[in-house]
């Protein structure tokens, strides 16, 4: 496009400007990549090597640290716990969220706007501020130190934005399709299930990423509700691990690498979806 910043045909001042901007962006790229690279190489080094030669490459690729952290320090457990908690919470977020979005977008009734506002307020209200009543509630339910507690809280975290995003998409599906299905004998649930849901599949992918990244990364609620090591999720497990080995940098870098690398690899393959999904709430 003619408005593109290109070197060809640009004035000298503009060429200088473009070069300066590219330089700034390259510096930021190095600022992102080098700390991550250093984290990975440090996990192969000994403590002494990290302190004395912090920029040097490791002498050998010894996976001993990884084995220690993954098996002896329980990271495999934390990992599975995170997958389980995120998976179950997300399944319900998508199910309940899409149903509510359908109930708001495809029917006209008096309380329609009110229900929509309730979900919208759920996006605005910071859930962390509610931790005291949540704690008392979960305690009363006898769910302290049970993964069910955070699964339910994660559901509450994810549902409002899911309703918000999906109802927008569902409103744009032509009503004629619904009439046709009704004549063919479909009831409301099978219209939701067989007509509307398949048509909003791309939006489902969007909200899945939008919600599962923060749920996977959440630290605050598991910190409060999960106490025994066997049920902790990855971020809290990482925190416990840091408390126990605060001076063993070599092991700490390995723990961080294990916590960060899977997300990075997933992102390399699906960056387009991650970018679209994560910004879905802010970009209309």
């Amino acid at each position, binding site marked *: 496009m003619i408005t593109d910043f290109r070197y060809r045909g640009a004035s000298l001042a503009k060429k200088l400007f473009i070069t300066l901007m590219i330089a700034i962006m390259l510096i930021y790229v190095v600022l992102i990549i080098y*700390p991550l690279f250093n984290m990975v190489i440090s996990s192969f080094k000994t403590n002494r090597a990290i302190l004395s030669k912090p920029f040097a490459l490791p002498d050998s690729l010894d996976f001993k640290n990884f084995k220690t952290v993954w098996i002896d320090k329980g990271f495999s457990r934390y990992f599975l716990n995170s997958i389980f908690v995120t998976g179950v919470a997300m399944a319900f977020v998508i199910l309940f969220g899409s149903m509510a979005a359908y109930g708001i977008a495809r029917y006209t009734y008096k309380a329609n706007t009110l229900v929509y506002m309730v979900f919208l307020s759920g996006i605005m209200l910071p859930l962390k501020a509610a931790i005291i009543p949540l704690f008392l509630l979960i305690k009363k339910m006898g769910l302290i130190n049970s993964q069910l507690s955070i699964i339910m809280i994660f559901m509450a975290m994810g549902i409002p934005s899911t309703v918000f995003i999906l109802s927008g998409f569902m409103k744009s599906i032509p009503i004629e399709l619904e009439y046709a299905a009704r004549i063919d004998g479909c009831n409301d649930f099978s219209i939701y299930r067989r007509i509307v849901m398949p048509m909003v599949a791309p939006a489902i992918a969007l909200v899945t990423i939008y919600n599962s990244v923060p749920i996977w990364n959440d630290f605050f609620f598991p910190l409060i509700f999960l106490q025994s090591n066997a049920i902790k999720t990855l971020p809290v497990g990482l925190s416990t691990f840091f408390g126990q080995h605060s001076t063993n940098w070599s092991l700490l870098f390995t723990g961080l690498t294990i916590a960060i690398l899977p997300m990075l690899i997933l992102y390399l393959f699906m960056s387009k979806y991650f970018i679209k999904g994560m910004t879905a709430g802010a970009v209309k």
Partner: protein
Amino acid sequence: MDHDCLQQGTAMNQRTLIKTSWILLFITPALLVVGVFILLPLFMTLFNSLFSWNQLIRNEFIGLENFRRLLTMYPYSERFLNALQNNGTWFISTMLIQNSLGLLLGYLLSRNIPGAQAFKRIFFIPVLFSIVAVGFLWGIYLKPTGLLNNFLDLIGLDNLKRAWLGAEQLATPSLIMVNIWRWVGFPTLVFLAAIDGVPQECLEAAYLEGVSEWKLFWKIIFPLIIPAITIITVLTVIGSLNVFEQVYTMTGLDGAPNYSTDTIGTLFYRTAFGSVDAGSPEIGIGSAIGLIIYLLTFAISLVSIFFTKRKEVQL
């Protein structure tokens, strides 16, 4: 005739009934979850803040006494104002540094600067990582013997070496910089999407007219992306008031050194689950802080929306 009407009437009623039950079936599960875990706690926070508490037992109604103690009594008032001030620093620095940088980067990407596609993907990488992992990672790098000081040594700037997280003046700015490192990619891509949404003909026409770059940005693009700026501002408000993990992982729950990195989030946690100066949980005062977080989030978001709405233009 009458009979017909009646039958039609009951048929209508029946259909309304069926429709209502379908609607209820669809919205009830989600409404229940949001009601129990979001709305109920909001009202309970308000309710709890009006009572005196003995550990986890609710005692008597004391009106606004908790708020009075929080705002006027030592050590609560001092800690609270200190924390609030730090949250203010977080908000202002994030707006000025992170969001302006995001706007600049988003703009450059929208103009397809050479390498734009690769830059876009790389900038977004840290956004995906958990704040906890990022906090712990930089916590190590910013130690006196960590990577940053080693790097300053390496390039001969060893007189710039500092105890980044150990000095009262530097600790909060260091935390903010780490957070910006993680988060810049987000406003960048939101602004990029907003600028891409500006009709291309507008830009091309202005460009061919010979409008200067400076004017092109401030007079044409900027007014048209005000909605994106509103959203980013509101998200920054919410994010700044909820700072917790960054402090927890890098300088600890007490906001070391000497409470210089304390925020409402960490103070709230200590009040609710430990105590401000070591002791038992204080549910009453904690609820008062919780309620203030709600009110601040709500009020500042409204102001930001109002403020930017006035400047919004429609094409």
